[in-house]
């Protein structure tokens, strides 16, 4: 019954989305405002129904209901409850249901809480939202029904890919999806604004919290995904330029550009057309990402759900929405009035540069990701990997960081080059000092990119604190702090990346129990190998004492075996110290009772993810800062009434 309830809820939600679409556009076009009254209730009901459908699927997974095909193929009754729960979205159908659920709930939130938009624009936005949802409902119901039954029901399920059985990964996809869907709301706002010809500062202010929220979640999702790949895959790297990773990076790049341009539009009423364009591009990128990951069209080390037949469905949706939005953009953008002008030396200009650089990186990543597909159409198999992406993204990212250091020091509208130079003098001196000392100590030992990376990181760190210089700290608005923290986070991340690529020490050995391995100031004594068992796995574990001068710490890398499906994973031992991380991987046994060991000392590598968290925190502070004023006003109004 639960599966049928879920399916019925999904069909009803789809029907409501269709109704919502028709009502909104008939109401706007036909000049029948009465029809518009039903749009908001339809959106709210749709949100509730999708939530019911998703709750039904979670229940089926938690109960291990083996009469449901999806549960059979992706779960197992012996699995720990957390992974039964997370298994709900650790597969194609479940993740698409999560997608429409988040979209439905977000639509309901837009219907209920959006106050900044004018009524017509609001209704057009909800209509746009319904149009997007409708395609995804169709996708789910016609090609990937999560509630399909299997008869006869097997005794047990086939299990979940062990690589996905990790707390980090259990919550990583929902975070990313919330981000993607947040961008869909921004997309709908852009559609609504184009339809009602209201592309202005008010529209930007209404859109900004959604962009900020989506961006914070995307940042967190990417940071978590990077850390997961780092500790779970056992190869010691934190970014692989894998198509699946690029799929989340591309919307993030677009959202970062959008975040800055929407701020220009909201505060200075400039960059109108560009902002609308970016809103379209940002959500298009989340759909392209979904297409790449879900269609199985690209080679990937961690594309889990692959099914080429579904690719064509998503491709169709992609063409429809992106094509439709671009057509609407082309048709209406001519009628968008000119925004406010600005001088060449101004904060607006730097933000335009930021936007251009971000867009260029986005374009280059997109080309690199799709290039193998294009050449394959001509019969050549090619793979584009880290060397390409490092070479193109590295220099542009550094230029972007320089723009980021300068931006906050410039005034809006108009500034004087001489004054800007004076304001940037301190960070410039610091950069010079760092380059000199780095040249003295590490010249010839580190590459040019890590060298520049460290210099720029320190300079950006100093420059990003500049907006707080000589200000009353208690009276500085929260969103200024948000900007400072986020920019500082970028500097921290960059420093971590540069340190990791410049100073990492790697050692590969085959050692016997009793041996001591010395590397990078560490002394690691290999005590013994012990077999151990977990909930649904067995493992070989190496007990080792790691010490650096003083007392030693026990570390235990494992090699795990899962029976269902038969797979092994490697659990690296990570020892975190203030100045870096010791990373030990246990390989297999070789002749003479020796075990393969791979040991890395990675100085300051943790800064990469610390920076990611700071960036997200900065976004959250800005969001709270912008919204708090509204909440305060509302609260005061209520107090006054009482």
């Amino acid at each position: 019954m639960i599966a049928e309830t879920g399916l019925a809820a999904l069909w009803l939600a789809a029907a409501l989305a269709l109704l919502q679409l028709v009502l909104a556009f008939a109401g706007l076009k036909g000049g029948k405002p009465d029809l518009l009254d039903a749009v908001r209730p339809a959106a709210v009901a749709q949100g509730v129904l999708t939530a019911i459908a998703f709750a039904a699927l979670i229940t089926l997974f938690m109960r291990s209901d083996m009469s449901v095909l999806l549960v059979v193929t992706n779960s197992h009754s012996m699995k720990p409850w957390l992974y039964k729960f997370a298994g709900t979205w650790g597969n194609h159908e479940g993740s698409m249901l999560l997608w429409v659920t988040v979209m439905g709930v977000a639509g309901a939130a837009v219907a209920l809480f959006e106050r900044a938009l004018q009524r017509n624009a609001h209704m057009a936005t909800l209509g746009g939202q319904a149009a997007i949802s409708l395609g995804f409902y169709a996708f789910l119901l016609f090609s990937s029904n999560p509630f399909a039954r299997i008869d006869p029901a097997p005794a047990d399920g086939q299990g979940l890919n062990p690589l996905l059985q990790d707390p980090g990964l259990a919550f990583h996809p929902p975070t990313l999806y919330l981000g993607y869907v947040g961008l869909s709301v921004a997309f709908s706002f852009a559609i609504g604004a184009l339809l009602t010809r209201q592309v202005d500062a008010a529209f930007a202010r209404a859109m900004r919290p959604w962009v900020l929220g989506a961006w914070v979640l995307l940042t967190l999702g990417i940071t978590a995904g990077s850390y997961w790949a780092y500790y779970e895959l056992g190869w010691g790297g934190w970014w692989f330029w894998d198509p699946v990773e690029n799929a989340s990076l591309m919307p993030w790049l677009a959202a970062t550009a959008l975040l800055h341009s929407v701020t220009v539009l909201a505060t200075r009423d400039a960059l109108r057309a560009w902002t609308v364009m970016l809103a379209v591009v940002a959500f298009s990128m989340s759909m392209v990402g979904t297409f790449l990951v879900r269609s199985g069209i690209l080679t990937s080390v961690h594309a889990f759900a692959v099914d080429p037949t579904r690719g064509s469905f998503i491709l169709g949706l992609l063409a429809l929405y992106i094509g439709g939005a671009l057509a609407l953009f082309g048709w209406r953008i001519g009628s968008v009035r000119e925004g406010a002008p600005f001088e060449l030396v101004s904060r607006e200009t730097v933000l335009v540069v930021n936007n251009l650089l971000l867009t260029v990186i986005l374009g280059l990543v997109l080309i690199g990701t799709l290039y193998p597909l294009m050449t394959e159409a001509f019969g050549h198999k090619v793979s584009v990997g880290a060397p390409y992406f490092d070479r193109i993204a590295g220099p542009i990212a550094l230029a972007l960081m320089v723009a980021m250091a300068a931006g906050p020091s410039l005034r809006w509208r108009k500034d004087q080059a001489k004054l800007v130079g004076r304001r940037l003098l301190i960070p410039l001196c610091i950069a010079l000092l760092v380059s000199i000392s780095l040249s003295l100590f590490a010249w010839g030992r580190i590459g040019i990119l890590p060298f520049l990376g460290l210099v720029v990181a320190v300079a950006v760190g100093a420059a990003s604190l500049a907006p707080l210089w000589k200000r009353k700290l208690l009276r500085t608005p929260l969103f200024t702090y948000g900007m400072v923290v986020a920019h500082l986070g970028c500097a921290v991340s960059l420093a971590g990346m540069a340190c990791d690529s410049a100073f990492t020490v790697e050692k590969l050995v085959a050692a016997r129990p009793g041996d001591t391995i010395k590397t990078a100031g560490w002394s690691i004594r290999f005590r013994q190998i012990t077999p151990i068992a977990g909930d649904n796995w067995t493992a070989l574990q190496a007990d080792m004492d790691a010490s650096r001068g003083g007392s030693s710490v026990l570390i235990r890398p494992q090699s795990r075996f899962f029976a269902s499906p038969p797979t092994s994973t490697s659990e690296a031992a990570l020892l975190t110290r203030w100045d870096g991380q010791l990373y030990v991987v246990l390989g297999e046994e070789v002749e003479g009772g020796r075990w393969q060991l791979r040991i890395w000392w990675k100085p300051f590598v943790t800064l990469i993810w610390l920076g990611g968290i700071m960036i997200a925190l900065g976004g959250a502070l800005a969001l709270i800062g912008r919204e708090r004023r509204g909440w305060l006003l509302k609260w005061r109004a209520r107090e006054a009434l009482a």
Partner: protein
Amino acid sequence: MKAKHQRLILALAALVALIGAGLLAASALKDEAAYFYAPNDVKTKGVEPGKAIRLGGMVVKGSLQRAADGVTIRFDVTDGKATVPATFSGIAPDLFKEGSGVVAEGAFDSKGLFVASNLLAKHDERYMPRELEGMNYNETTHEMKADK
């Protein structure tokens, strides 16, 4: 500055950025895109030493050897038509074994030995590197077969 001029300058800047990006991508792709070769492609087309490529095929049964250091392996990669010797230092993926598919990233040395810097084996029992789709290994005859 007039608004119209400003829009023009912005459009020009965007255009320059776009063209620059295109040129950059083209040159980087030319240098850095690793071509995928099966052993027979290596035999027929030839690959110059030092050029980064991806070599894909099956690990020949009985060809896997371990060096004395315990971390270097030697193995042969075949696509049923030709066979290429390869070497790798490191911890091989769990599902790397004889008779199984592998994609090796690396380059040939001057003696025609493929030195792999990275091995991509099957991810789990169900996943197969996409480049190897349509290949399988016959357990009884120890021969590679290409489906169709």
